[in-house]
C-alpha cells in the first residue's frame, strides 16, 4: 500500500469544479504532514486542459484516464474507473467532493474497494497522529469527530467551503496516463443527455441583496412578508429547497446545491434552518443575516448577524424601517 492521498477530480462540462481545488489544498497539507504523495485522478475525454489546470496545486502525480467512452458516463462506470485507479495506487485516503455527483460515486467506490466512507465531512486532519474527520449529525446541530485506525483506509467526501484554495506550488506533477478498456466495463445504465435549467426572469447571481425565505415561513400565504421586505430593500427574493418542493416559489429562485450559488453583499435568511445543501449555495455571501426562532439552527454557524426571534415580528418591522428610510 502506498498510503498516498488520492483526490478525485470533479468535472462539470469539461471544467474542474472549484471544490476539487479545495480538496487539493487539504490533501496537500495532509500529505506534507503524513509524508506521503498527493495524487490527483481525472477521468473523461480530451483532458489536456484539465491536466494543465491541475498543475501548480501541489500534486506529486496526476493520473489520467482519457477515453472517448468517458464522454457521457453513467455513475456505475465512473465509480468502476475511479475504483480501478485507486486499486493501482492503494491510497490511504481518497478525497471526494460532497456534491451531488460525489454522493453518487462515493458509496459505490468505497463499496468496491471495501473501504469505509465518511460523507458530508467539514474537516479531515491529523489529530494526535490519527487521521480524524469531522462530520455533522442530526440536522447538522451536532458534529462528531471520528478517528481512523492506523491501518484503516477511507473515502472522505468533504463539504464545499471546508478549506480555502491555497497558494500555487512550483512543484511540477508527473502526469501518468492509465489505459483501461472502458467500453467493456459492464454497465446497465447510460446517460442520454445533459440539460440545463431554462433561464428564467430572475438572476440571483447578479443580486446585491438577497432576501431568502425558508420553510419557517410555514405557509404560502405568508410569503408576501418576505417579498415586501425584498421590495423595500431593493433586494431579490430567493428561497431554500423545501419552499420550492411544496410549490410556494418557483425553482428559479432556489439557492443551494441543486439550485443557484450566490455571493451577494447581503444575504438575509428568514426562517431558513441552514441545511448544508443550502449553505453550500450562499456561504460566500459577504454579510449573512439570519432570522430564525431556533437558536441551534445551523444557519447561525455561518451567519455574521443573527436574530433569534419570530420572523413575523422582525421582517415586517424591517420592511417598515426600510420603507421609511427610502421616503426620507
Amino acid at each position, binding site marked *: 500500500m502506498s498510503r498516498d492521498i488520492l483526490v478525485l477530480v470533479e468535472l462539470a462540462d469539461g471544467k474542474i469544479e472549484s471544490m476539487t481545488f479545495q480538496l487539493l489544498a487539504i490533501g496537500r497539507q495532509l500529505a506534507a504532514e503524513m509524508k506521503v504523495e498527493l495524487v490527483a485522478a481525472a477521468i473523461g475525454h480530451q483532458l489536456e486542459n484539465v491536466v494543465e489546470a491541475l498543475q501548480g496545486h501541489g500534486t506529486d502525480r496526476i493520473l489520467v484516464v482519457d477515453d472517448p467512452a468517458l464522454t457521457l458516463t453513467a455513475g456505475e462506470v465512473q465509480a468502476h474507473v475511479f475504483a480501478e485507479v485507486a486499486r493501482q495506487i492503494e491510497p490511504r485516503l481518497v478525497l471526494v467532493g460532497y456534491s451531488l455527483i460525489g454522493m*453518487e460515486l462515493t458509496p459505490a467506490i468505497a463499496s468496491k474497494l471495501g473501504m469505509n466512507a465518511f460523507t*458530508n465531512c467539514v474537516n479531515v486532519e491529523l489529530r494526535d497522529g490519527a487521521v480524524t474527520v469531522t462530520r455533522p449529525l442530526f440536522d447538522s446541530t451536532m458534529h462528531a469527530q471520528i478517528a481512523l*485506525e492506523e491501518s484503516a483506509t477511507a473515502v472522505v467526501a468533504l463539504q464545499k467551503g471546508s478549506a480555502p484554495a491555497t497558494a500555487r506550488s512550483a512543484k511540477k506533477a508527473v502526469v501518468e496516463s492509465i489505459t483501461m478498456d472502458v467500453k467493456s466495463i459492464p454497465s446497465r445504465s447510460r446517460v442520454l443527455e445533459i440539460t*440545463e435549467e431554462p433561464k428564467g426572469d430572475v438572476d440571483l447571481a447578479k443580486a446585491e441583496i438577497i432576501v431568502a425565505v425558508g420553510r419557517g415561513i410555514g405557509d404560502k400565504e405568508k410569503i408576501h412578508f418576505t417579498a415586501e421586505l425584498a421590495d423595500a430593500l431593493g433586494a431579490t427574493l430567493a428561497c431554500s429547497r423545501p419552499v420550492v418542493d411544496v410549490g410556494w416559489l418557483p425553482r428559479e429562485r432556489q439557492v443551494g446545491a441543486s439550485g443557484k450559488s450566490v455571493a451577494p453583499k447581503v444575504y438575509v435568511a428568514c426562517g431558513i434552518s441552514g441545511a448544508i445543501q443550502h449553505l453550500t449555495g450562499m456561504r460566500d455571501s459577504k454579510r449573512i443575516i439570519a432570522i430564525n426562532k431556533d437558536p441551534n439552527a445551523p444557519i447561525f454557524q455561518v451567519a455574521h448577524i443573527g*436574530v433569534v426571534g419570530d420572523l413575523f415580528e422582525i421582517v415586517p418591522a*424591517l420592511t417598515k424601517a426600510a420603507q421609511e428610510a427610502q421616503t426620507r
Partner: protein
Amino acid sequence: MNIVVCCKAVPGLVTDLKIGTDGKAIQYQGQLLAINECDEYALEEALALKRSGGGQITAISMGNIKALDILYYALAKGADKAVRVDCESQDPRVASTVIAAALRKLDFDLVLTGTQSRDTLGGQVGIAAANLLGIPFAYAVVDVEARENHTVKVRKELGGGRYAEVELMLPALLCVQTGIQPLTFVPPARRIRARQQPVASFSLADLGLQSEQLTPRGYRFVGVRAPERAHQVELLHGSPQEIAAALLTKIQESL
C-alpha cells in the same frame, strides 16, 4: 412494476448525545421516531408509479421494534407489504450489507429511497447496496418515467441547475430528491386501520449474515459536540423595532 421503498425511522429532537462504549456509535435520548422525510418522498414516487403502471409496493425498514410505526405509516399511505429487518446499526457499511441481503430476498424491479437520513446525514446506504447487488443506480433523481422495455428513464440533478437524463435497465436503485411528488396527508382512521396489517420480519440469521459482516471496523468516534462556528455570530437583541433599525444600519453599511 414491483417497487421496494427503503425507509428509515429517525428521531425528532435528540438530547444527551454521547459516544457508545465501543466507540462505534453515538448514543442519545430521542423523541418518537418518524419516517425520514427524504424516504417519504421515495414512497410518494412509488405510489405515483403504481397509480400509472400497477405493481406492488413493499416498504422495508431496518431497526428495532420502534421502526414498526413508520412501516404502518407506509402501509396507511398505500404500500402493499412491509418488512422490518431486525438490526440496529449506524455504520453505513453494515447497513448497506444488511439492506442488500434483505433486498435479495424480495422480488423487485425498482428500489427507491431518499438521498440521506436526517440523523446520520450519510446518504450512503442506497448506492452502496446497489453496488453490492450489482444493479445500476442514480442519485438525486427528480423525475422517473417507466418505459416498456423494462427500463426507466430518470432525470437527476448534477447541481447548479444542471441535469442528466439517464436510462437504467431494471432492476435498478434510485435515490430520489425531496419534492419529486407532493407529500400526501393520511387520515388518522386509515393509519389506525393499517396497524392491523401484518409486517414481515427478517432476522440477521434469516439473511444468512455472519457477525464479522456486521461489525463496524477501522474507526472510532472520539468527540461529539456542538459545531464550531465559521465566525462568531453577532446576536441582536431588543424590540422588533430596535432590531429592525440595527439590521437596516448593518445592511446599509454593507453595500
